[in-house]
């Protein structure tokens, strides 16, 4: 009458899967992490980026600092990121645990940008908001007296990215369902179910859209060395979803597509055995190679693999494939996972230190037929949140834009960078030292690659306010052509998308 044990064990699969180890006793007088963060706040203005946003969200109008909105740049910038970290004076241990706060910036000619932020009303959010405390285990934290989980989306924080799909706004998270939102009001609708037998499957935060509008995505089942692959039509209907095995359980956050292939880089933070919190199921294993896997878009049973030097990554810039099958790819990679398993814990305690700040650099990989590969690194600074001209997804291209920082800079990136992948040359604009920049999103204007605008938010820790900057994507070094500032600070976010007017 009941699902068999094996099926129930599968409860544990997605990042969602873990069910209730008893949490630590709740009667502790003070949470050391909460108290450390509170103590750090007055001395460390950067901690604003990791502070709780109001439960009701935020609404405001940004004031112009410089310049004016470029002609044609009208639409809405959506962003997502963790925005709620503590309840009942108990604070999450890991930055990635926070509940998703989706923000919208409405840009309209002649008007000041209108900003709104709303928490994604996941099941988790609604139940915990009603209870006044955290109820379920999170990705990197086990709150006191947590109740465990009974369903796959029970811990879905919907906090990582957003995408527009045929008029729907989806809040994305790595371990569970995409959450549907109203793009105008940001009100939550519920989990997206793509078809029969697909409820609750992970739909990761970095879907890729082919030039013809076909959407590709994946979800990882690290405990079973498997992926679910998704192919979605431009109208949001499911074309295909299926499981693919024999993909090592190294935490996979992002991937790339070419015209022919889905390309996965499996780093060396590997699933070891199920532990709670879920992140602790992963251990660094530098004894094995990093694995690159290219799966044929047309036949998911066909693949090519490459062994690469050990490493770690969150984000891929983009990839393309030559006629002989050689794959060219760029990614923000590092030699270890010090931020994921160090720095992202530290910031929750109000600590920033050189030892755990990310050392990701933009790398170029060339994966040749037959398993040979080449790797090179741009060693003139650190890089994260690589962005491309998305019209060229899967196609040969020249430019990647990203945030940048330098060794010793431990409180977050200050630079917006354009990298020429061919010559290696950069254009770089450095904001003031007390500005923390966020992902620069490319918005196309003219027909050629890179002809368009970079739109990015930033936390000005001196002004205690979040800013919006627009740069000419071809002339990044010139700095913003227009900037605005909100009357308040928002928590730092991860990823965004653009909806043209």
């Amino acid at each position, binding site marked *: 009458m009941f*699902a068999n*044990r094996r099926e129930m064990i599968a409860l*544990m699969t997605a990042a969602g899967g873990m*069910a209730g180890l008893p949490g630590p006793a709740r009667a502790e007088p003070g949470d050391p992490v909460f108290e450390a963060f509170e103590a750090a706040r007055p001395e460390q203005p950067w901690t604003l980026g990791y502070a709780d946003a109001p439960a009701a969200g935020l609404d405001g109008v940004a004031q112009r600092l410089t310049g004016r909105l470029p002609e044609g740049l009208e639409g809405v910038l959506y962003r997502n990121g963790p925005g709620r970290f503590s309840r009942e004076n108990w604070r999450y241990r890991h930055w990635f645990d926070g509940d998703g706060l989706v923000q919208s910036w409405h840009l309209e000619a002649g008007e000041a940008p209108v900003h709104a932020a709303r928490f994604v009303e996941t099941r988790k959010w609604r139940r915990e908001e009603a209870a006044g405390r955290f109820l379920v285990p999170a990705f990197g934290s086990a709150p006191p007296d947590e109740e465990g989980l*009974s369903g796959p989306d029970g811990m879905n924080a919907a906090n990582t990215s957003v995408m527009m799909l045929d008029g729907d706004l989806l809040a994305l998270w790595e371990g569970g369902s995409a959450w549907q939102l109203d793009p105008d009001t940001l009100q939550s609708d519920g989990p997206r179910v793509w078809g029969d037998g697909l409820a*609750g499957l992970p739909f990761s935060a970095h879907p890729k859209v082919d030039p013809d509008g076909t959407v590709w995505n994946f979800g990882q089942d690290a405990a079973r060395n498997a992926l679910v692959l998704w192919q979605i039509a431009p109208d949001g209907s499911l074309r295909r979803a299926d499981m693919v095995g024999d993909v090592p359980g190294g935490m996979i956050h992002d991937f790339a597509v070419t015209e022919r292939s889905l390309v996965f880089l499996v780093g060396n933070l590997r699933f070891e055995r199920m532990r709670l919190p879920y992140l602790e199921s992963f251990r660094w294993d530098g004894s094995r190679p990093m694995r690159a896997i290219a799966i044929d878009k047309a036949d998911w049973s066909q693949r090519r693999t490459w062994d690469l030097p050990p490493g770690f990554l969150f984000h891929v810039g983009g990839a393309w494939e030559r006629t002989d099958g050689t794959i060219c790819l760029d990614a923000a990679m590092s030699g270890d996972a010090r931020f994921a398993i160090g720095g992202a814990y530290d910031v929750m305690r109000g600590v920033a230190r050189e030892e755990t700040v990310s050392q990701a650099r933009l790398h170029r990989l060339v994966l040749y037929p037959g398993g040979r590969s080449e790797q090179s690194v741009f060693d003139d600074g650190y890089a994260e949140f690589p962005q491309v001209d998305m019209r060229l997804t899967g196609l040969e291209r020249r430019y990647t834009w990203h945030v940048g920082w330098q060794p010793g800079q431990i409180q977050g990136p200050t630079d917006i960078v354009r990298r020429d992948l061919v010559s290696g040359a950069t254009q770089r604009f450095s904001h003031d030292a007390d500005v923390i920049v966020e992902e620069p999103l490319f918005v196309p204007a003219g027909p050629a690659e890179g002809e368009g605008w970079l739109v990015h938010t930033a936390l000005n820790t001196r002004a205690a306010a979040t800013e919006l900057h627009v740069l000419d994507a071809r002339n990044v070094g010139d700095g913003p052509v227009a900037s605005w500032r909100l009357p308040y600070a928002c928590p730092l976010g991860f990823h965004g998308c653009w909806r043209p007017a």
Partner: protein
Amino acid sequence: MILPAFILSAVLSSAMADGTASITVTVDGIEIGSGHLVVGLYDSAEGWDGETAIDGRRVAVTGDVAEIEFGPLPAGRYGIKMYHDVDDDGQLDTNLMGIPSEPFAFSNNAMGRFGPAAWPDASFAVDAGENAHAMSFR
């Protein structure tokens, strides 16, 4: 139908007078107001692990709460597994990864660690007479 029900209740009360027990299970947190609750009662760790229920119920869902009666039973330790068969296909639906996609719960509202809740966590004492046990989907 009145007569058998009357007889049953007569049997029930005489059995309880003999030192046996009944359980009234109340269920809340039912999110979808259709389909059936499928409820299994177990009286041993072996039965729990081996999926041999000693009794079962299939109860039509009419609202966000439900009540299920078990008994007469000998006093002892019991455990309950329950799922909400939302689409009435007679099974706990799972997705491609084998993750249940219909709500389920265990007695004591116990949660599994890497699978179903374990007997020591989910079982509860049933004394002679009437017993109440509350369960919740979440």
